[in-house]
């Protein structure tokens, strides 16, 4: 342990100490990873755009713009007034892309949070309890695996209504399955380790062993799956919107491409299609890159190298 520096003796686990430790983990992770840095930068960019969308968008994304004569500016190409041109209904594409960032981020983060929450708990309980609990939960997981994604979402959206919340729930209901399986397999290995037996010997009960000892040990994996789930959910929402089952009241990127397709403009109105398309690709990619870097956390020694 020669490379280890002694921490100041007086500070116990104070907040400042934790922040410092967190920061050193962060720099250790991203310091040497160019792709991770690019991903992080892109992601922060999108988050900034999403957070300040109403101020950044030059026009109301639903407003029909007209030219000097008062005619609607239909399918106008890129210009200084309209950076990415206009749509069939004369709406500003640039503003729509900016506002659409919010939808994608909202869907990505909430669907991923939900699915990882469900998946982690199912995997943890299933792996830890074993026996018939495991059987029942894993058969439910198998059923989730058997459900084809798009038809399932379409049926759900038809029944519940094309509301963004329903789409998020539909994505989460399909997506928890992979987290559940991976977490379960990790729990199976961890519950046999000596530290778990020590915890029992020290008087820990099932809940404490599960959530305080095993969960933190599988958490890095959970984070990785959360990152991947975000990217996947963003793409899923775009697909649903492109197929015309999206929330019609929102300007999502998928919805934009769907609109362009619907009015037969997809073949020539590149200014209408490429910006939302590229945005989907870049956002999904940035999350993947960050997720890939986070994967390194699975090595616990990396987390407190100082």
């Amino acid at each position, binding site marked *: *342990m020669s490379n*280890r520096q*002694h*921490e100041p*003796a007086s500070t*116990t*686990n104070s907040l400042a100490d934790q922040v410092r430790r967190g920061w050193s983990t962060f720099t250790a992770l991203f310091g040497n990873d160019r792709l991770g840095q690019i991903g992080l930068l892109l992601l922060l960019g999108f988050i900034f755009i999403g957070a300040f969308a109403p101020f950044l968008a030059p026009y109301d994304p639903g407003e029909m713009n007209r030219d000097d004569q008062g005619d609607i500016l239909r399918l106008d190409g890129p210009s200084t007034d309209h950076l990415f041109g206009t749509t069939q209904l004369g709406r500003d594409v640039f503003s729509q892309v900016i506002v659409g960032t919010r939808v994608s981020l909202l869907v990505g983060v909430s669907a991923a949070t939900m699915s990882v929450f469900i998946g982690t708990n199912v995997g943890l309980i299933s792996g830890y309890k074993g026996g018939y609990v495991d059987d029942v939960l894993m058969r439910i997981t198998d059923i989730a695996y058997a459900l084809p994604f798009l038809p399932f979402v379409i049926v759900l959206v038809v029944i519940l209504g094309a509301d963004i919340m329903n789409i998020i729930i539909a994505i989460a209901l399909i997506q928890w399955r992979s987290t559940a399986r991976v977490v379960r397999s990790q729990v199976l290995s961890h519950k046999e*380790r*000596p*530290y778990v*037996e*020590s*915890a*029992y*010997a*020290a*008087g*820990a*009960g099932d809940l*404490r062993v599960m959530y*305080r*000892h095993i969960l*933190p*040990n599988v*958490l890095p994996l959970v984070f990785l799956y959360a990152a991947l789930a975000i990217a996947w959910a963003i793409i899923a929402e775009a697909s649903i919107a492109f197929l015309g089952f999206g929330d019609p009241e929102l300007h999502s990127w998928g919805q934009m491409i769907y609109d362009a397709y619907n009015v037969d403009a997809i073949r020539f109105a590149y200014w209408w299609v490429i910006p939302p398309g590229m945005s989907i690709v870049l956002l999904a990619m940035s999350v993947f890159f960050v997720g890939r870097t986070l994967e390194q956390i699975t090595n*616990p*020694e990396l987390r*407190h190298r100082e």
Partner: protein
Amino acid sequence: MTLLEITDLQTQFETSEGRVHAVDGVNLSLEANESLGIIGESGSGKTTIAKSIVRLLPDNGEIVDGEVRYDGDDITEYSDRQLRKQIRWNEIAVIPQNAMNGFDPVYTVGDQIVEVITAHTDTPNDEAMERAKSLFQTLGIDEDRVHDYPHQFSGGMAQRAMIALALALDPSLLIADEPTTALDVMIQDRILHRIQELQDELDTAMIFITHDMSVVSETCDKIAVVYGGRIVEFADTETIIKNPRHPYTLGLRNAFPSIMTDDQDLVSIPGTPPPLLEPDEGCRFAPRCPFAEERCWSETPQSEPYGDGNTIECHRADEHERIRPEASKSETWREQEEVIEADD
């Protein structure tokens, strides 16, 4: 005062091949502040005895019969919750075989000591941390290292930290399951001494589980020799070391070097430990015993008391005066080895 009294303990494992009688009628008693060594080969059931006491058996293991009286109460009757809240760690603490893996890798060692203290008592966090630091000092570890993670410790240091964790709640009984097996002899010796000193200081009873005769002879007041899930001989340390009566104990003694005599031949006991799957009648050591007679094969010997609270489980225990010199000769065991090989 008797702290722990085990009567006719039987622990079995359900396996695909049948029931394994890992502990088969064990009787033991331990006074407060006494230290007991349990010695035996791998697979003799010594660890299972320890795990049965705190009921930390794997899922396929079960205590089928017998009592474990702790402070007068039969704790085999306790519910899991009772055992967890009242016995584990506040009363009986366990030092595991491999301390390095005994700690949860994601928390600092200090946090884990704090957790065990705050989970069992109403102690506030900062006081618990002070306690962790003072425990570290007691065990000769720099107190700042409470903020370190388990992997930042060396083997010997992790073992000492584990002892600190075990002492966190002042348990009345400490069970150490081969606590020094993974360590080199120098560190081993230091840790054993430290444990001994602490035991005297803190008035704790100890159970030491090991396969190393020299470890128990140094640290324990009494020794129980386990063979095939039974205690074949139980006596004070001096008797076991100097005047054992059971041929197995005699054989074990031959297998360890003594510093006092330099021309000693090291002789191992021929054969392998018995399978404990549905054992038959008869002495379990008979197949490996150079002194086995007809009745050793057909009748299971029962535990006979002798001296001051000692017990022996051997049909020929009365003849120990004659057997002992025979058993210290290497020829006796070599001949037995030939007998075993001839049988195969």
